[in-house]
Each structure stands twice: as C-alpha cells, then as structure tokens.
C-alpha cells in the first residue's frame, strides 16, 4: 500500500468534496438512466453496433465528454470508485472537473490509481496498467461513425454497417500507403469488433488498440453530441484493420520516459524551452508515478490531487 499523502483514506481514494443538495444521485434523473442503461445493454449484446440514445444536455459543452459522463452517471453506484483521465493524465482540466462533478453529485470515492478504480472514464487513452474484469472503461467519443470520412450520408453508412459492406475502409488505408508509404493514421484507428462491426475506438492513439483486444474489462463508448452508445464486452476480439502486406503496427520511440525510464509506455513529447529542448514523458501520469515509486521504493509527494 502506497497511500501517499494525508488527505487520502486507506483504500487510496481521495475524499469527497462537499456533496451538492438538490440533485439526483449522479446528476441524471432515474428515467434517463434507465433509458441509457437499455441502450448500454443493447450495445453490449451487439458488440461494436452503435445504439442511438436520447442524449441529454449536460452541464458541460459538447466535445468535453457529454457522452462519457452520461454513461458513467448511468452505471455508477454508491460503492464505485471513479477515476477520470484526459489524454492519460489525471490532473488536466477535463479530468479534474468530471471527477469533481461526480464527487459532488454522487458522493462516490474518486481515485487516481488505475487498479483501485472500478469505473474509469477516459478521454483518448487506455491506462497502461492492464485492466481487470471488475472494471469498466468509459470512453468519451466525439465522432462514433468510422465510415463518416468516406461516406457522408448517414442512411448509407447505416446500410453499410447492416450489410457489412466495409470495403471502403480499406480505401482509406490504401490512400495512406499510396501517398506516404505506410498507414499514417495514428489515432482513432478503425477496428473490427468480433469479426463483424467496424468501430471507431474514439481518438485513442493506435498504440492503445491492441489493449482493446480480449480486454477483461467492459468497454463502453458514449458520444453525447452524436447520440450514440456502443460497447465491447469483456474478452471480445478487436482487430485493427490492415493489409496482408502492410500489417498493423503501433508507435514506438527511441527514447524512454525522462521521469520514470519506462520504455514500453505511450510517450508525450514536451517542449521545455524556446531553444527546442524537448523531453519525452509517459502520457499516463498515474503509471509514471507508480514506476518512479517502484524505482525509488518510496511514495512520491503529490500535488494537486484533490486536496
């Protein structure tokens, strides 16, 4: 146990901010939650299929995670421990505020530790620490339709999904290879779920795509503006699209993380001055901390973690 600072309780989670009065548990009314849960059940039953749902207006703008937050609000219970990340980081505006939102409206415990959380809402990353079957990963999705860039008509994309006419997805990959010699799509890399539906994995880096395959945790995707929910049930096959002679590859770096020295995590490039000095650090802030703690064998002083 590496409970780090005094304002954390024994299971490593942070204390709640004050619970707001006058709101239903986790903000959404029960009727809405039921509607969303029905959509989630359908989504889980048909892996990768986009289920329409009556997205509500949330107290944050579209594009900030309205879909993810509605899914989280519908599945979270009193005993859940919530972790929210934004591009891998626990302490960016979006993550901090969504965490506070559920702290205030649901009074649930929140944490930064990946293995302590039961529900993880994420914007554009999958945590480096492998997830277990007791966890649920909720993605915030801006554009759920993977065919949209090549086919603009919604009626047509629905038909293409229904009939599994997915040849056009490879046209996109072909274009990439023809122009650049390799597939340059580096995020939101399309996948095929359970050998059936083509799915947009939300804008996670393609580095994270292999983690989706046969993941023990339930993965739920919510797109608030586009009013779609889809899901990948636990232990489901998720395959990234590719050509036989141009197989799918993930990003790699020559550097390792400048803070923790990890050589197998997703690295962000950080410019540190005006002379072009740069460093590479883990995008998953919690994973990076844990690596440093392992190395130094001592808990790391944290700042700004909900205190």
């Amino acid at each position, binding site marked *: 146990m590496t409970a780090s600072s005094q304002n954390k309780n024994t299971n490593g989670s942070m204390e709640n901010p004050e619970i707001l009065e006058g709101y239903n548990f986790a903000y959404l009314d029960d009727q809405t939650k039921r509607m969303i849960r029905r959509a989630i059940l359908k989504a889980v039953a048909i892996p990768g299929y986009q289920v329409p749902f009556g997205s509500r207006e949330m107290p944050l703008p579209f594009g900030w995670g309205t879909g993810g937050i509605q899914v989280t609000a519908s599945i979270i219970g009193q005993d859940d421990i919530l972790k929210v990340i934004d591009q891998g980081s626990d302490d960016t505006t979006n993550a901090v505020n969504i965490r506070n939102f559920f702290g205030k409206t649901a009074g649930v415990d929140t944490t930064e530790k990946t293995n302590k959380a039961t529900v993880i809402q994420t914007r554009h990353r999958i945590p480096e620490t492998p997830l277990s079957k007791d966890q649920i990963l909720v993605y915030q999705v801006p554009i759920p339709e993977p065919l949209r860039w090549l086919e603009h008509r919604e009626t047509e994309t629905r038909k293409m999904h229904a*009939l599994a006419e997915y040849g*056009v997805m490879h046209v996109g990959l*072909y274009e990439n290879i023809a122009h650049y010699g390799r597939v340059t799509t580096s995020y939101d890399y399309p996948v095929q779920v359970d050998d059936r539906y083509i799915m947009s994995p939300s804008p996670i880096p393609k580095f994270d795509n292999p983690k989706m395959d046969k993941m023990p945790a339930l993965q739920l995707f919510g797109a608030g503006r586009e009013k779609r929910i889809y899901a990948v049930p636990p232990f489901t096959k998720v395959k990234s699209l*590719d050509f036989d002679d141009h197989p799918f590859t993930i990003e790699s770096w020559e550097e390792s993380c400048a803070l923790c020295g990890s050589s197998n995590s997703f690295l962000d490039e950080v410019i540190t001055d005006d002379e072009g000095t740069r460093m590479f650090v883990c995008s998953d802030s919690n994973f990076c901390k844990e690596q440093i703690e392992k190395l130094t064998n001592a808990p790391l002083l944290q700042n700004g973690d909900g205190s």
Partner: protein
Amino acid sequence: MTMSLQNPLLKVENLSHYYGDQIGCENINFDIYNGEVLGVVGESGSGKTTLLKLISGLLCPNAGSVAFDTRIEGLRDIYKMSEPERRLLMRTDWGIVYQNPKDGLRMNVSAGANIGERLMAIGNRNYANIRSDSSDWLEKVEMDLERMDHFPETFSGGMLQRLQIARNLITKPRLVFMDEPTSGLDVSVQARLLDLVRGLVSKLGIACVIVSHDLGVMRLLSHRLMVMKSGKVVEQGLTDQVLDDPQDPYTQLLVSSILPV
C-alpha cells in the same frame, strides 16, 4: 436471333414505372445476351434514364420483372433478391458508368484507390496486388501511370470518364450500364473514348446497355438499338437496320434530324 441457343443475360419483361400520373416508362420488353451491346435512344424525357435505373437495380419498378443470369442460380428477378445479394451483384457482375463522373467516383481519394475500391469491397486485402491491378487498368484505359496517385479533381472530363470505366471493369463484370458516357466531352475526346469502349467491350465480351441521345455514338457502339418516346419503345432492331431504314415515324424524324457537318 443469332444467339437463341444461349440463355439471355438480362431478361426484361413488361417493365413499367410511373411517377404519380406521369409515365416513366411503360411495358418494356427485351433480352440482352452475353457480349451484346444494346443502345437506347430517344429525346430527353423519353424515359431512357428511368429505364436504365430500373434495370440496374437503382429504382424498383411498379410492374414487370428484371431477371439477371446469376452465376450460380441462373435467371433471377433482381428485385426479388435480398438487398445484400443485389448489392453484391452490383459491385461484382455489374458496372455502372454515370453520365456525371462525380456520381460514380470518389472525388476525395486518388485515381488508384478509385480503381481498386471494388477489389477491396470484395475482400482483397493485399496492397501490392490491388495496386498492380489498378495500374494495369489505368493502362488499359490509356491513362498515364503518373496520374495514379492524383486526385480526380485534377483530371479532365474525358479522363474522369475513363477512370470511371476502369473502376467498373476491374472486377470483370458481365454487364455494364452506361448513361450518356460521352455527353459533355468534346468531339475528339468522344471519339477516343468510344474507340476505347468499343475495344474493351469486344475484347472482354462484356454485355452493355448504353443510353444516349447521340445517334452517332449508337452507330459506332451498339449492335442493337431501341428507340424510346414518351416512356414507350417505338422501334427496336439491329442498329444499322433501324438507322438506315427506320419504320416508325418518330425514328424517321430522329434519324433525319441529325445535323450534317
């Protein structure tokens, strides 16, 4: 007459379609055999394009049937097939060349991807093979290989039409529908394109339905000719016969109205 031993490739019977009170086309009957080119002529509004849509699976008729000789099960009514079957047919055994190439091409992807799309749609997942097939077809339609990775927007009208043809023929379809393939092109380009189409069609033995208002195009390309007026077929027969010795007053008018150069 000459090919009566064979089964027809496409059999159209009593085909009618109405737009409300308006006649789209009425009571159309014809057969097409392998390797045969059928021309449909008529003034604008005579139902040529409606007919083409009806027989190419794009518009469900009010009455009558369109049967295609499928590879496995023989003659089948295309409107009684399930939609996936019909769409599979459309992107394998059929080709459709649109009057406006922008309808038939993806303008936001390169020429090579446009040609290769059908291969990918039927499950080809080898980039090198797709690319070499695409470049073969680019050569067959007499286009410069350098243009392979260029976007269709940078192409001239004639090149777009050739690109559309290559895109359709790559899966070796047995039946190709062409709607005014040469309209909007200048005369010299028209002639080259017609030459190309004629060469490809006879070499590959593709059956073809060509809709045009241009009798010159028909004389050059089609074996048989169907003349339409107000949604009905007024005359049909061998192209030379119809053009040299028109029986119907309307056809006589049409033939005599060609401007002498």
